[in-house]
């Protein structure tokens, strides 16, 4: 059993060697979400054993954890104090880690109401592609000293650094939760949602197969009143967990690729996404359409498409931005991983 300090030193040494040789490393948490993004390549650098809570002061609503800590462990530790992660995090089959969650950068159905994972990040320790251990941000809510490199890690698929530790903001756990289900068309669903937002304690709203599922969370008395106002049938909390983890049946099945369309929430429901989440801002679409077509459709709606998973592991996760902006991304990548050894090709074929 090596100490945590030794484990960090080991990661630095491994990355440094890989940097010198120019050989790629695949950063692995629990490996439960390897099927997302482009095909992983390289020597595995496994962080699953670098786990545990570094600091947790419940009165502060902030926790610092090692990257290999399973999300479920963090949730259990903070639930014991009536707290919860401010952002709801998707997980795969197996003990999905917080490091993987930051790399993928996905946030569950709670996002429009409680913020995204990116919003909840306060600081991080990372090992760069040259093997240097650096610390950015901190454990306080406001911090503008230095560039916000910790937030930059979110959604980068591990291509900008090996995440070692992360500090996250916590929220109080809702006293009570409830789910209501209403049969209606999307236009009705959307206008009703607009009427409730800011007035009722919503914590999630998704729409699929002709039904609007609304999740509420907060003070018991307020939930009772909200359920009465919304009406409909009683739904299940599991719907939202399944959506969070992208295992809801309605999301579609292979061989279709699973896409996220990120659009202005009022954009028309066209293409007919399989599941609408985030009150309309995120639409999941399982389709075999070529990537170019999907990106064009998203752009027409004023948004972007993100490819989550699919049989073809060679497609980029995002559409290529304008060439000058792509070059800017490349320069930022080169600062933190000059020889492209961290999760090479995982996010984009370019690096």
């Amino acid at each position, binding site marked *: 059993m090596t100490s945590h300090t030794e484990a960090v030193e080991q990661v630095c040494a491994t990355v440094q060697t890989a940097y010198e040789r120019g050989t790629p490393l695949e950063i692995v948490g629990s490996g439960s979400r390897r099927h997302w993004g482009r095909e992983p390549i390289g020597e595995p650098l496994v962080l699953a054993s670098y786990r545990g809570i570094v600091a947790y002061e419940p009165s502060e609503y902030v926790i610092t954890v090692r990257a290999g800590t399973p999300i479920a462990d963090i949730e259990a530790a903070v639930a014991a104090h009536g707290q919860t992660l401010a952002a709801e995090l998707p997980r795969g089959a197996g003990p999905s880690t917080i490091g993987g969650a930051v790399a993928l950068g996905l946030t569950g159905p709670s996002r429009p109401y409680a913020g995204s994972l990116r919003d909840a990040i306060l600081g991080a320790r990372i090992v760069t592609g040259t093997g240097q251990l650096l610390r950015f941000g901190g454990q306080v809510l406001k911090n503008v000293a230095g560039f916000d490199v910790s937030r930059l890690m979110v959604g980068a698929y591990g291509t900008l650094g090996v995440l070692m530790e992360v500090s996250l903001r916590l929220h109080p756990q809702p006293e009570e939760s409830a789910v209501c289900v209403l049969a209606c068309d999307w236009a009705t669903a959307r206008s009703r949602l607009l009427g409730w937002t*800011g007035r009722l304690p919503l914590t999630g709203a998704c729409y699929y197969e002709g039904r609007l599922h609304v999740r509420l969370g907060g003070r018991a008395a307020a939930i009772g009143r909200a359920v009465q106002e919304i009406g409909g049938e009683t739904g299940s909390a599991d719907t939202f967990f399944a959506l969070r983890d992208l295992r809801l049946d309605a999301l579609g099945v292979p061989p279709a690729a699973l896409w996220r369309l990120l659009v202005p929430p009022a954009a028309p429901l066209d293409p007919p996404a399989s599941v609408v989440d985030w009150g309309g801002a995120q639409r999941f679409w399982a389709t075999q359409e070529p990537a170019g077509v999907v990106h064009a459709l998203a752009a027409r709606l004023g948004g972007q498409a993100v490819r989550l998973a699919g049989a073809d592991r060679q497609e980029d996760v995002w559409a290529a931005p304008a060439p000058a*902006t792509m070059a800017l991304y490349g*320069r930022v990548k080169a600062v933190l991983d000059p020889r492209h050894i961290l999760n090479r090709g995982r996010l984009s074929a370019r690096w």
Partner: protein
Amino acid sequence: MQYTPMKDSPASPTPPAAFWRELRKALPADGLLVKPGDLGAYECDGLTVYKARPLAVALPRTREQVGAVLRICNRHAVPVVARGGGTSLSGGALPRTDGIVLSLARLNRILAIDPENQTARLEPGVRNLAVSEAAAAYGLFYAPDPSSQIACTIGGNIAENAGGVHCLKYGLTVHNVLAVKMFTSDGVLHELGGPTAEGPLDLLALVVGSEGLLGVVVEATVQLKPKPQAVVALLAAFRSLEQAAGAVSAVIAAGIVPAGLELMDRLAIQAAGAYTGQHYPPGTEAVVLAEVDGDDGTCALEYAHLRAILKAQKAFALDEARTSEERRLLWAGRKSAFPAVGRLAPDYYCMDGTIPRRALVEVLAQIAVLSAQYGLPVANVFHAGDGNLHPLILYDARRPGELARVEQLGGDILKLCLAHGGTISGEHGVGVEKLDGMCAQFTPAELVAFHALKAAFDPYELLNRGKAIPTPARCVEPGGMHVHGGRVPFGHLERY
């Protein structure tokens, strides 16, 4: 990471005649100020102890003109300082004598308010308060509300990641900006972010709070929020600062997330009382101002909970405000606290450290001890719920040596924040003012990474050169702040 550290802020040579010709051509007839009399207003920002006269001030009206100005400056290697409202408290908008000021003040159009999607598309020179005013017609508001909101601009807010009274619940600028259009210093336009503030790499997160070092923002799409149904504000008076600080920690620990949670100490209350005519109960040593909002039901429950905690924490007087007029009066003292404190002494120096909220009692007590040691009064009026301190050190710059002592005390306060696991700047930025504090907060390797990121956007260091990140060479003693042995903390800084 290849970065060859330069000496602090080397001066550029004087630009040639061609530069001036091109600049005149690129700007409207009234868009270039060069006469000394016209430049005076641009010599400093909200941190008035630093002043510098720029070569010129460019006042473009369109984003195309902004791009053209940047391309000309890039071609002639002339440094640029972007300027919004000029309210920065860290010298962020302080000009360079060898460069120009690029004012975004005339790009002040609200391009669209989209009530359906609850967003606003803005030019950078739109004033912060103007956004909420325009959104109010749709029952919406823009959440980040710095106390300077009448004067500061969205571009400046993005550069500084500005916060405000309501940020504890609604987030800082970084949480409320979805997308930006930004020129890098070579005059190339980049679009970052999107409807959900995501992108292949989150460069948007890097740009927000980058103190204008990475690019010039010419358009921003921001998130609007529905105005809460119910709002109640509460003023709790305490007989000691310690009790008030303890009450703040207790509210946070109880899991209440008030929309705002502010603290004012005796000096700040006295100043605000004299300024606004607001009366605080006799014997008040500190007040806590709190606001809860939400739907009617939740708001009532939170209010009852909050009130009970403040009572249990020995608040001896509680005043509540429900109508918007009552709330305006209750907040008036807090909102005017800076100018009010400004009347207590010829000068004040505003600090901006952030600490974990559980350390409030201890840190405030230690600040009081330092204040006594230095013989310099310190007023405290700050975003207590976020742990963001704003100790205001009162002094008189005309007294020889006093500013140096003020900066020394400021350095000690920042060290105190760091020792408690905090940061040297919560919302005002590093600018020219806290460069030495950066040496204490970051390792040389981290500073090198910052410079390399800067170079990825701005290889010739044209934008805000010399600000926000000290060169590793400047941090002679890594990990230590330059305040030991009677050394002046900002002695290395260029003085104009």
